[in-house]
């Protein structure tokens, strides 16, 4: 524990923040244990399930493989960042509910964030991905309850008309 602490500054869910962190601290631990944002889920801690997905500078990453020091100067969005008082649920989340794509829900925040990130990218590039492409993009996510069909339905539905929303346009 006597390793040197490193100062980092970042924006999380629209809020600027500065912290001292241990260089080996994982992003998921910073998020869950220090910032107490429990919506980011630890499914495997080995980069295989996608439950721990967060968005860093617009890209979905596995926070269990990502060192916290590497978010220095970056924008981080977690599932909590999708809810505001004015708009409690993001359109992706509405689609997930509408299509019945949530059962136990442990995988859900990860899927939601990945689908949102795909949507943002597609808007920028002006493309609508096919179902096959979406499935390929979501290959890093595991779900043991739903069999993926409804998740893909929801993603396809959302990605037909995604809403561009940068991680930075909070507040």
């Amino acid at each position, binding site marked *: 524990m006597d390793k040197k602490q490193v100062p980092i500054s970042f924006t999380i869910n629209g809020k600027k923040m500065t912290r001292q962190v241990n260089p080996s601290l994982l992003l998921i631990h910073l998020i869950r244990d220090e910032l107490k944002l429990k919506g980011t*889920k630890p499914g495997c801690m080995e980069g295989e399930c996608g439950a721990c997905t967060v968005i860093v500078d617009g890209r979905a990453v596995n926070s269990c493989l990502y060192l916290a020091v590497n978010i220095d100067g970056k924008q981080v969005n977690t599932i909590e960042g999708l809810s505001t008082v004015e708009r409690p649920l993001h359109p992706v989340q509405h689609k997930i509910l509408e299509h019945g794509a949530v059962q136990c829900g442990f995988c859900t925040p990860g899927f939601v964030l990945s689908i949102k990130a795909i949507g943002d990218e597609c808007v920028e590039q002006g493309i609508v991905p096919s179902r096959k492409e979406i499935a390929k993009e979501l290959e890093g996510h595991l779900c043991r309850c739903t069999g993926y069909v409804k998740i893909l339905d929801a993603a396809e539905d959302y990605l037909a008309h995604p809403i561009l929303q940068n991680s930075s346009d909070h507040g």
Partner: protein
Amino acid sequence: MRLRIIWLIQSFKTALIMDKKLKLIGKSTPKLDGSERVSGRAVYGHDIELPNMLHGMILRSRYPSARIKSIDCSEALELDGVECIITANDVDVNRISYKRDHPVLKGETVNCQRDELAAVAATSRETARKALRLIKVDYEVMEGIFDPFEALKEDARQINLYGKGAESFGNKNIAESFTYSHGNLEEQKKNSRVIVSRRYRLPRVTHCCLATSNITADYSVLDGRLTLYASTQVPFLYQRDMAHALKMDPSRIRIIQPTIGGGFGSKLDMYPFEPICALLSMKTGKPVQLLYDREEEFIASPTRQTMVIDLTTGADAEGKFTFREVRIIMDNGAYTSWGATTPFVMMQTYSSLYQVPACHFRADAIYTNNPFAGSFRGYGNPQATFSVERNIDLMAEELGIGKDEIRLINANYPGEITGQGLHFKTCGAKPALMKVLETSDYERKNREKQNGRYRRGVGLASMLHVGGGAKIYRSDGCGTRLKLDHYGYLTIVTGSSEIGQGSETVLAMIASEELGIPLQQIRVINTDTDIKPWDVGVHASRTSFVAGNSLLGAIRLLKDKLNLKAARLMECETGDFLYEAGSIRADQKEIKIDKVVREMHFGSPNELCVAEYFYEPPSSFQDKQYMGDVSGNYAFASQVAEVEVDTYTGKVKVLNVYVSQDVGRVLNPVGLQGQIEGGLAIGIGYALTEEMIYEKGVLQNPSFHEYKLLTPVDMPDIHFYPIETLDEAGPYGSKGAGEAPLIPSAAAIANAVSDALGVEFQSLPLTPENVLRAWSEKRQHEPANSRKV
């Protein structure tokens, strides 16, 4: 004549159920608590943090089989932040598990890789982990027994010292044994035109709940009460088991179920880590949390039974089934969980899936030094169905009749009382078969044989499963309490549990339907044993059925009260009023339901608008010979799988699965569809990719990287056709549906791969290596000139 009467009665009952116009039941309704889950607000066991909380961790055995000479914790105890370490010597506990053959902490011998030797409570997980490394265990390693057939040998040593096999079953290493028979086997053998015998081997697979096992224990030294935040699917059995383990009064134990990140049967038993965590809390007087990491989850959580099935079946010249003779050896592992009772379900499949004049069944669960098996969605039935349906294909081939035809000839029918005494008051077996045959275009696809690198095939399989609970405990019942408040909001306190399967939503839908209260005004409380009434737990696809009936009973009582008061207020005769849109309606009059409640509360005589009801299904205990009608009703299903096999790589791609299932009535289409798709994903994984690989009792692939689950790209197109038979026993005619979708899928897929390649498979999973091996063996045996290029 008799058949006709039964048919008439059935259509009459059906008419009664159909009569009522349903507003919400049968309409897709999103999950009630879905928004909590999609927004990350739902609190799972991993998310709980209590003040002053410690972190627990378990030291497991280095060897699957050894005597323990000593455990030295002195160095670990000195580590800063370590508050407590326990070993078998430090605790006064009873053995746990279904057969009470499982010490919570192991002090004399270790019998499998999972075995718990010591547990630490520390101020952080890192400290706890460090402490584990400092504990010194002196082992005397023994040669393990990993093959159940070896364990059965005369000179094998007794693996579980607490096993009662010698007295009960004539062999020290038999943990549990089931024998069943009906009909005259010898006579039926004589009647048979074909007899097919095969040995099937089914692999060990595991649940892979996305949330790993977890518990938070909070013992209060002030009043001696123990609160457990535990992901159990059977809270009341769990409370009893915990009390037994800890030698405590059960009512001092309160079980609170946080949101559960997947169950699938894995949370039917209580495992050692749970009393261990409680003990750490009791020793330290502080809350303690114990979470598995993924590797530990693979190593130390239960599995589906791996087994060897010897199945002999016969059919006469017309294709009518004559008999089934089954001998099953299950690898029980080192200790005995509820999973050892899976033969109870398997024997139903052998005795009663299709019409079977004679059946003899024996299954033994054998102790080995492998990890112990638990219960897993389907409960033995995927294994049994795999063997039955493979044999049926082989018999059809030998008889030269269609694989569809042979199944139709033998299909179960409404009114049938099977050799085992199961009574199919309604039965959608034949309609389900016909539906999948027709929609998949089975006959044509089965006829067309393909050449070349990619070959397609179709496979057919059916299943039978309990649909209305299963009486395995003294009560298979469920209690409900209702409270309607004077603002028109309803609270349902139900004994049943929600583990992600959507039961909460179905209950709220039923209440909304019956009382005309919008869903948004209904709360379901179901997570606290201090509050909720008895229920046996989530198993046997029973929750919608049993909890639904219990709720309907309570609603009837509540309505009696409301009707009386409403009649008085509307100044009319009391009767069967219409409950709609927040109002109670008589012919010309109506009154708001909340107004009626206000009059009950504040008028005189003052009265609460509450009701409670206990529902016990009409099923009976089976007798010692396992004869009897064990479930309130029965679910039937058929599936056709269409696959494409790459003969160069051996890779099997499932293209389409056609599913038809007798669900009694569809309550919530989107929820049901989700159960079907989710079940199929587990079934396809069982067929194609999943296997825990053990070498001498040590798991070789404890990660998602090496243990392959299906991912979003692997799913076939799923075509689902529910069959509604409106069984009067279930709420609105419904039957349990949660387990059925995964039961026949492995069988259908194996049949399809066999169809595509013309080779036989007697084991799972059909990995590329296994398929390729079977394929090249076939090619070697084919005469050279018949080979197509």
